[in-house]
């Protein structure tokens, strides 16, 4: 019976339907392509890097890579076997071999070794340096950024001047990071005489992320309902009391969200720290200083700069590749850990100060 009835709702292969299908697949394809690129990049780094960082035998992690300073790798033949050794081990090994030979009355053995810079040891100073740079610059950026965001949204009379300031801040966000590096070099390193130091790097990086933090903090402050402010002010609170007790706690989760993005950017930038804070290699660790104030005025090693150095400033071979991908892998992991910590903190604040 029903089959006799012509279905008026049947799909018609019109051009409109074809375009609909075309765009659906085009968008879908674009998304999958992006996904594929991401997976390829991460997968490659994780695949290559984990070979350096992890071991198949206990303790399963390459402890030396995470806890030691970079060393020159020596590769030589000994008793017909190929041996790889770091700088310090190689020296002690040679001395003991020479002493052994001397005791046996034989001539000193000859070592024909090839050396590869930075290919032995670990990246501990870089990890420490990067964490110090991120924490310090984020503290500076958050304090200054949130303070100026509070002034701009809560105190300043909205008018052409404030609009101009806001525009200037937004433009600052578009300045290439190398330009911030140059600015930091001219301002902090040379003019203030801070030399290549942690503090110069902190301020350079802080100025770089400040626009993001200010803009996002302003947005976060604006999302706090006007009623909270009015309710507080109507009870006779001053503006600062109102901001501290009825506005800022509720804006904090939003501010932290923006600073999480800031963390990734600060940790990842190579250009601004290249001539303000980073050393190619430094034997001392940051806390090995004579007096406390020296802490701020010392250069540090940093992960992104280390990757740059080992990938482009030294001769490439199979030994440097291990360091490159190992460092990149650790770097990703550290950024992920810091970001995760901020996200947990933000979610805690969010559930405490939700409205």
């Amino acid at each position, binding site marked *: 019976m029903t089959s006799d009835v012509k279905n008026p709702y049947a799909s018609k292969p019109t051009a409109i339907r074809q375009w609909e299908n075309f765009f659906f697949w085009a968008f879908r394809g674009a998304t999958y392509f992006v996904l594929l690129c991401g997976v390829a990049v991460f997968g490659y780094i994780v695949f290559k890097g984990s070979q350096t960082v992890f071991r198949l035998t206990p303790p399963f992690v390459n402890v030396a890579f995470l806890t030691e300073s970079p060393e020159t790798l020596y590769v030589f033949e000994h008793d017909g076997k190929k041996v790889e050794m770091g700088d310090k081990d190689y020296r002690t090994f040679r001395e003991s071999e020479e002493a052994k030979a001397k005791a046996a009355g034989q001539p000193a053995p000859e070592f024909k070794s090839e050396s590869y810079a930075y290919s032995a040891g670990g990246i501990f100073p870089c990890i420490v340096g990067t964490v110090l740079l991120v924490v310090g610059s984020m503290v500076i950026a958050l304090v200054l950024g949130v303070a100026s965001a509070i002034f701009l949204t809560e105190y300043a009379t909205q008018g052409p001047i404030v609009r101009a300031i806001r525009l200037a801040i937004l433009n600052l966000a578009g300045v290439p990071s190398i330009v911030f590096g140059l600015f930091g070099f001219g301002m902090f390193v040379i003019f203030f005489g801070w030399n290549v130091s942690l503090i110069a790097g902190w301020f350079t990086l802080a100025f770089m992320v400040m626009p993001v933090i200010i803009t996002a903090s302003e947005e976060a402050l604006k999302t706090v*309902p006007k009623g*909270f402010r009015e309710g507080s002010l*109507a*009870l006779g609170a001053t503006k600062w009391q109102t901001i501290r007790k009825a506005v800022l706690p509720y804006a904090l989760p939003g501010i932290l969200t923006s600073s999480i993005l800031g963390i990734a950017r600060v940790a990842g930038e190579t250009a601004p720290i290249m001539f303000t804070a980073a050393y190619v290699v430094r034997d001392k660790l940051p806390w090995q200083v004579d007096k406390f104030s020296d802490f701020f005025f010392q250069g540090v090693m940093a992960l992104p700069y280390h990757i740059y150095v080992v990938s482009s400033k030294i001769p490439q071979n199979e030994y440097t590749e291990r360091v490159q991908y190992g460092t990149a892998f650790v770097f990703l992991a550290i950024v992920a850990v810091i970001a995760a910590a901020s996200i947990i903190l933000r979610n805690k604040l969010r559930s405490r100060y939700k409205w």
Partner: protein
Amino acid sequence: MVTSAFTTTAPMDTPPAASSTPTTRAPLVPAARPPAAGGTRTIIDIENLDFYYGQKQALFDINLKLDDKRVTAFIGPSGCGKSTLLRCFNRMNDLIDDTSIKRGSIKINGIDISRHDVDPIELRKRIGMVFQKSNPFPKSIYENITYGLRIQGIKSKARLDEVVEKSLRGAALWDEVKDRLYESGLSLSGGQQQRLCIARAIAVEPEIILMDEPCSALDPIATAKVEELIHELKNRYTIIIVTHSMQQAARCSDKTAFFYMGKLIEYADTRTIFMNPANSQTEAYVSGRFG
């Protein structure tokens, strides 16, 4: 259900039971209240007030004397300036950029509040405010009530506890929330939240309480509770209430001021305004013919 033609043309807040002839609008009219012993004192004295938002004049030559320990209602259609005037009393308009009183004065207890030696912070400690949209802080009920005291630096737990109970009892909320003082103020129902805001306002013992359409977001039962509360509070506080609901003005207030287009049209005993208005615009508004 009343389905007369009247209900289809009248605004929502006009009682459907009333007929359109003014003389039979009996349910709207409050019972005449006995005059207070010893007469009344003027607490707020407004003289020739012109108020501007930027270049736009919002209030035109307002002259008004408000009585102490009485409920005064401000009525009028949206945008007539009644909320603006209310927010002049605790200088909340200062918070809006580019607002100014270009002429005239507001004296509270004889002090011109625009004077340079009047600190709006001190003024607002003495003049509480309840907003249209209930705005408890997303803190516990206890912290909401004690907020005003804490910002004045009062830390004594015993004192704070005492004020919390007193204020919540004062706002007829104690019995409903006494077992959950440390739960969020936002866990309360809409009407309870608004009464919490009233409790928060009376916790700092103000002289005057300003209410800016306190019931416009509440259901009829919650509204009735707030109105009951206004009745109880008026022995101790001067209350000025802005309302869109004429029944509310009729039920709660001793005196009513009718505003239209930034001008004070008529100010008289509530009974007079609703029963026997002198001005034809007032008459038209209270009978629901416009606004």
